[in-house]
């Protein structure tokens, strides 16, 4: 008798311990990245780190602005290209796809989510970059924001589609029935009842897609060109900004960490801190939107 009570007690604490590892890891991540970023923040100064546009480790110049701009530009591009398809796909799957078609499209979305990011990067390098290169603009290498945005749009599609579909499915049946009973068509019901009712879930889906886009590393290195420049038009036509090369925050870390030492290494950890804060902001925004949905 006492043995099994002792066992029960012991297991309770053991399980509590394993539950606490998650928060311990979060603490450890925060602690170690901040500790390693410390020297860079002290020597360079937070302001110059965040607002400096020049990144020349050889000359001790560490400005992250170009990378911040690169990350944000490519994320915006991915959202613009990917969200229409993702939302269309979500409405299609939740509202109008017959079960058989659904049974085909669902696994396709799942597989898109599972394909390793290097494979997307590889596809981008081999197929997309040569295609983009054909656009006749001087200094157009094919590597750049456009290729990266297209690759990233495909990569965030499963995230946005899944969450948005769940949100659309969660709309109470009565709402739709009420609308249909008033004589509106299925499409009118989708546009004026279902989608507005699922609005916060859809917004959350898009924001989480942004988080996913900001955090993507390897595929971005492979197609964005990695030049540390502020994204800018290649000639007098402002639209050619999409052909500009760029570098993301994530790429900055991955490309240089292997050979960085001293302040340079510390500046890369500072890059990680900036990225972490950016993603935390985006994710808590999503959490806020989701929480507001349930009164």
């Amino acid at each position, binding site marked *: 008798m006492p043995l099994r009570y002792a066992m029960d007690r012991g297991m309770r604490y053991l399980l509590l311990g394993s539950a606490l590892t998650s*928060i311990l890891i979060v603490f450890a991540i925060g602690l170690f990245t901040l500790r390693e970023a410390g020297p860079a923040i002290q020597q360079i100064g937070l302001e110059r780190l965040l607002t400096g546009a020049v990144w020349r480790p050889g000359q001790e110049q560490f400005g992250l602005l170009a990378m911040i701009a690169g990350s944000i530009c490519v994320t915006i591009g991915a959202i613009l290209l990917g969200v229409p398809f993702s939302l269309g796909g979500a409405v299609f799957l939740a509202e109008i796809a017959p079960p058989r078609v659904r049974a085909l499209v669902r696994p396709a979305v799942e597989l898109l989510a599972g*394909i390793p990011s290097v494979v*997307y990067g590889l596809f981008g390098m081999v197929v997309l970059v040569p295609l983009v290169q054909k656009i006749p603009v001087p200094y157009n290498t094919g590597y750049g924001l456009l290729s990266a945005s297209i690759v990233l749009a495909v990569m965030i599609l499963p995230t946005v589609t899944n969450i948005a579909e769940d949100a659309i499915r969660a709309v109470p049946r009565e709402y739709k029935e009420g609308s249909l009973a008033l004589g509106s068509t299925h499409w009118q019901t989708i546009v004026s009842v279902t989608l507005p009712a699922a609005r916060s879930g859809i917004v959350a889906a898009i924001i989480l897609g942004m988080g996913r886009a900001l955090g993507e590393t390897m595929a971005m290195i492979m197609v964005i060109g990695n030049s540390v420049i502020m994204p800018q038009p290649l000639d007098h036509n402002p639209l050619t900004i999409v052909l500009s090369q760029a570098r993301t925050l994530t790429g900055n870390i991955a490309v240089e960490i292997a050979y960085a030492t001293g302040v340079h290494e510390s500046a890369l950890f500072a890059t990680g801190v900036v990225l972490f804060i950016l993603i935390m902001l985006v994710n808590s925004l999503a*959490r806020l939107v989701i929480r507001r949905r349930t009164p």
Partner: protein
Amino acid sequence: MTDNPIPADVTTQAAVLPPRLAPFARPGEPAARTAQSSPRWVQQSNLARRHLTQRLAFAVLWLTGLAVVVVLLLVVGYVAVQGFQVLSPDFLLTPPAGGLSGEGGISTTIVTTLYLVLLTVGLATPLGVGAAVYLVEYAEGLAGQRGLLPYLVSSARFGVETLAGVPSIIFGLFGYALFVSALHFGFSLLSAGLAGACLILPVIIRTTEEALRAVPRSYREGSLALGTTQWQTVWGVVLPAALPGIITGVILSVGRVISETAVFYVTLGGSYQMPTSLLSGGRTMALHVYYLAMDTRAFEKAMATGTILILSIILINAVINFFSHRLTARLGS
């Protein structure tokens, strides 16, 4: 319609409504209002127009659904068609030889990937399942209470949520700072395995939590009523019932590890030699794809390796579907 008592004045209004709507026209309704402002054919075809809009919209939605499948087929098809030209048993069984054209096969990268999967899953599963069991089975009653324990529980929940949102390169940086540098594990399977375990921990916790929540309350009540302790109930009743869901989570994280690159890029070193101990570096298949594409431009070999990756993901998805069907079947009966 003849037995419908339609007042005489309505018939004039019914004339401007589409025939199918005519019986529903209500007396005294100012139907003529729109008829004056818009041409007669628009008025007549209101329903037809709405149906036309719907048709167009649905056509666009069908095309989007189709586009998803086409994009998938395009990516997978292109990589696989190119890859199968290089793929052979020989390719799988010979080690990479390095060099500018990426000579050799991928045998060592397959072995490294398997080691890393075993290591990460072996480390993260007990911790993750334990955490989920505590959060669902023990901590559920603590909501809204004050004190140290509820505080710890809510911070643990916050930890899981945060970890799930952290981008993988940050796990890599963390692994590099703690395991590679501070603990002197170097670029090694051990460093990569520990960093990878942190990456998949939230995946395992979340899927296990979901699986545990799906176990009906009555199972627990029946067991507790027989006089068992809570741990006996968890071990003997709840965990077996949730097993398919837990396995799903584990397999899902196997997929995560196989396709992950960023974490291992900064913790595993990238040597293409066969790893001989926990402290030797290595190169996973996904990393190999990256090195082949970026350093050697051996795109065909990269695609062949990518094909193996895609095939393993397809296999993993099939197994997950199998287990989740079993879970619903079991709990449904």
